[in-house]
């Protein structure tokens, strides 16, 4: 890894929002020195139980952290700051990451930086896709939104009015006996489907709504082949996402489109996004699959940006917030 670190800051990022416990060391030049993680797997047919997931995180935390520092060839005392995912997310899970971060921060006397998990996705994606001021489609279990940076905030241009795309996929998946996160299995199943079942397509202005689509799809289980349902859910839900993203591109007259969050790993979604972006003559990119889902790097990188802007807290101020909207976070580097 780069030998000359004098001018660069080193940051540790800890992610523990939901199913993933991750740790990563990055430098302020945007290099990922290490990114390690362990993912809690829910039993088939059920979702993430916050208590079980947090237990998993506490169990794996020491090993993941040690592994991460070793791979990065960095000692804890060499770090310039420690960032953790402060929310939004599952309380018990968030608290594991916060406890680890506060402990490191107070023991090694390092500045502590709480990072909004969604801002982490947006900032890491922009870095890895080399986009300065993109329209972003954030698609995951926790978020479904089209956001645009302006005036020191990430602004929500449109979002889901009810459940997220990840929840739609997970809740349908569980109905047919899959284990969360169900996205990859549904994608596979959809490849075998070909018959389109008509489902609610709900776009309201720049917002989408998936609850009706989920109910309709669940009602078809048993009467229709699962492969056709998976196919139809994907076609409807992703077309809705493409439509609102296209509206944001047309309205904002920006020419960069970035897709981040776990669902950015879906090939059918990205294929559709590509066709749409071409029509709008926009360049487009998805966060690379290894970083599109939850990971420590998103926290490390957003943490470094906050830290460079002078935003850090004392260990006693290192809270977590289960509800924390991304458009309430000041990001002074994005004016």
């Amino acid at each position, binding site marked *: 890894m780069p030998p000359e670190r004098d001018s660069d800051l080193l940051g540790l990022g800890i992610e523990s929002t939901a199913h993933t416990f991750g740790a990563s060391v990055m430098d302020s030049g945007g290099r990922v020195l290490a990114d390690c993680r362990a993912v809690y797997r829910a039993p088939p047919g059920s979702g993430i139980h916050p208590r079980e997931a947090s237990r998993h995180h506490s169990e794996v935390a020491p090993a993941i952290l040690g592994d991460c520092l070793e791979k990065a060839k960095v000692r804890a005392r060499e770090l310039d700051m420690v960032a953790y995912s402060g929310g939004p997310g599952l309380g018990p899970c968030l608290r594991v990451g916060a406890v680890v971060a506060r402990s490191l921060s107070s023991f090694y006397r390092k500045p502590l930086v709480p990072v909004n998990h969604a801002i982490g996705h947006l900032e890491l994606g922009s870095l890895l896709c080399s986009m300065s001021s993109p329209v972003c489609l954030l698609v995951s279990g926790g978020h479904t939104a089209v956001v645009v940076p302006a005036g020191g905030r990430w602004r929500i241009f449109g979002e889901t009015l009810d459940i997220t795309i990840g929840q739609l996929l997970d809740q349908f998946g569980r109905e047919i006996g899959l284990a969360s996160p169900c996205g990859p299995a549904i994608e596979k199943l959809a490849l075998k489907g070909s018959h389109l079942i008509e489902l609610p397509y709900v776009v309201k202005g720049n917002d989408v709504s998936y609850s009706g689509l989920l109910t309709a799809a669940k009602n078809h289980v048993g009467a229709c082949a699962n492969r056709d349902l998976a196919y139809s859910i994907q076609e409807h839900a992703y077309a809705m996402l493409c439509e609102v993203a296209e509206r944001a591109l047309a*309205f904002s007259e920006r020419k960069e489109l970035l897709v981040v969050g776990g669902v950015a790993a879906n090939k059918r979604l990205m294929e559709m996004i590509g*066709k749409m972006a071409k029509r709008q003559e926009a360049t487009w990119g998805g966060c690379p699959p290894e970083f599109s889902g939850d990971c420590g790097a998103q926290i490390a990188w957003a943490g470094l940006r906050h830290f460079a802007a002078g935003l850090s807290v004392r260990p006693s101020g290192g809270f977590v917030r289960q509800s924390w909207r991304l458009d309430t976070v000041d990001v002074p580097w994005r004016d």
Partner: protein
Amino acid sequence: MARLIRRGAEADILLGRWLGEAAIFKVRTRRRYMIRELDYRMRESRTLHEAELLGAAKQMGVPTPLVFHVNPSTSTIVMQYLEGPRLKELLTAGDARIDLCGTMGTYLARLHANGVVHGDPTTSNFILTGGRLAAIDFGLSHRSEAVEDLAVDLHLVKEVFHSAHSEVSGNALDAFKEGYLKEMGADAERILERVTSIERRGRYARSEWGGD
């Protein structure tokens, strides 16, 4: 012939002539990211809805372009050309036309009072032409008197002010609200309350109407 003047998210906007008059040809072209069945279903229904409600809105006192011709099989609407800046361009800081946000509120209230939801009340869908504000783009419009549907319309207005016009969003929203309340009268309270509850339902939200 007609030339492309704007590529919207779902339609190409061409400027040409119709029976000697300048006219807009709004053509919903095939969206290749969607499978054919879905794309066709959407284009046809939106074209028909839009044509119908552009006309209906006029009866309700909301200026809209005159519809000259509709062709569902090519998903094309030919309509009067309204020349002028869009509200979006008139809200850039400095000499922002906050007063027009009040007119936007009045128009939305007129539609709502008559059971029409605009569906896409963004600032690029209001044009200042000949000194008068006009509403366009009724592609996502539908008839409904449900409080929920009307409230979503208002939520969308709030969203666009906050995201695209953050420098003036406070004043713009106040003016909009004033225009809306004045026109809507007593019914407005229930709808505004619902806006708050829609926002509370939003992801990780705790917001109130008018602030953040």
